[in-house]
């Protein structure tokens, strides 16, 4: 059984631009992978490929032994793969309120989770409260929320799913120091949870130091430990 995230000879490219070349990688549950790299090297794309939101051009990506690029996203959920994904700008559904964004996946899979309307509302409110989203913002549309609040709502949406995989794209980008601290606290909890595989794309030194995880650098389609990548570049 391939527990956690497995990349098996995985490649991805946009036309002639390689983001990932024949990469082998295993991130077991309870481990955190931080990916750094220059702007435009494809850190976000790598996250999408790892989460199965984009199909690898070659090779395979496995999430807990299931092919990440399942034909239907709901199949993965039914197989027990719960993915929390924080997009760079939040990725909230613009026609739903903050609360409705958090309850959406719970409501869609209510039969799978065995939840009724009251349960899912409660779980969503708890998740929003954990991320200190003000009650007055619960019914606001994403367009009326600041970037910091949008990111916290998106994180609450991931938390509410009780995920076993968390993918975070630039989680502290554009946040003020108090919101950043709050996000860091939540990320530390993800890192310390032995059942969650975490993949973070960031260039924030503060976040890397806070999580105390050795980052890997994405460059020229290869994922290498940062110091090794630096040495090979100097050579």
């Amino acid at each position: 059984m391939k527990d956690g995230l497995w990349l098996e000879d995985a490649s991805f490219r946009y036309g002639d631009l390689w983001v990932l070349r024949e990469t082998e990688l295993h991130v077991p549950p309870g481990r955190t992978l931080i990916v750094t790299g220059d702007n435009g090297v494809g850190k976000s794309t790598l996250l999408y490929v790892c989460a199965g939101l984009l199909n690898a051009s070659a090779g395979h990506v496995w999430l807990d032994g299931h092919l990440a690029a399942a034909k239907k996203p709901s199949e993965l959920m039914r197989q027990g793969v719960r993915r929390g994904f924080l997009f760079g700008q939040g990725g909230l559904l613009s026609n739903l309120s903050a609360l409705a964004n958090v309850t959406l996946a719970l409501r869609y899979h209510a039969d799978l989770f065995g939840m009724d309307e009251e349960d899912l509302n409660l779980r969503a409110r708890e998740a929003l409260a954990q991320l200190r989203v003000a009650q007055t913002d619960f019914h606001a549309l994403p367009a009326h929320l600041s970037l910091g609040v949008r990111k916290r709502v998106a994180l609450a949406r991931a938390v509410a799913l009780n995920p076993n995989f968390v993918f975070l794209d630039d989680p502290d980008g554009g946040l003020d120091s108090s919101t950043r601290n709050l996000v860091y606290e939540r990320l530390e909890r993800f890192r310390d949870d032995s059942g969650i595989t975490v993949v973070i794309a960031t260039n924030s030194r503060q976040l890397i130091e806070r999580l105390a995880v050795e980052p890997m650098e994405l460059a020229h389609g290869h994922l290498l430990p940062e110091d090794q990548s630096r040495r090979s570049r100097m050579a």
Partner: protein
Amino acid sequence: MRSTLPYDPRSDAVREASWVERIGRRAISSLSETWSLFGTLKDAIVSDFAPGVAAKRLVHGIMLTQVMFTGVQALSLVSAIGVLIGASIIIQTNMMMPADGELIGRVLVAVVLRELAPLITAIVVAGRSGTAIATELGNMKVNSEVLALSSLGIDPLRYVVLPRMIGCVVSVVALMIYFSIVSLSAAFAIGILASGASLSSFQQGVSGSVMPHDLALFFAKGLGLGTIVGWLSCHFGLQVNSSPTEVPQQASRAVVMSLLGCVVYNTLLTAGFYWLVGPPMPAP
């Protein structure tokens, strides 16, 4: 990967493709586009049979909202167009054959029920809701909302495309019926006032011209045209990649292709149907 070498403009020079290559590329691209177009329709329909009672309930809710936006909110516009179309037909027919209520009734059935009600309703829905759907889906793509749905284990085709498609089908069929009623009523009223023909002669003309198979054609047109508008609007909306400038381009493409698809479908169905069942109007 980005090159670290200094920029060399010669590297951007593209080799001139031969005409065979160009035709081949065009053919491959058209085939893959057609494949993806029908893939959207098939996958959306199949998605309704996917497991998940809660998902089904949620999608039905969105479907009702779509019917509200596409059908109910278009009533006033369809009413106005229905009255005006009915009036125009009466004016034309009255000039040809004054005070012949029966003939006017027959013309109304042939023009309004068989052709204009389906086509005009589909055009109104494509213009009003098709653009809205394509723009909404295009913006969802730009804002990573479609990817966000996938990451949450929600099938975008089931959650986004299916309810909009069915909403369009239900709305087009309901609006067609409404359009026919409004248009015929307006035509009767104006006809009685303008030409002095009797209501009973109108009724005789209409009831004598409507065949049972007309109803089959009417609903086949409604179902088909509604599907075309919903399907193409969703498909082209989802063709947006990541740039906001693609949104209006795809929205306009969605409407143009929907209108073209509707006219072609309507004509083919009319021709095919009467070729199969014989002439619609019994000889006087």
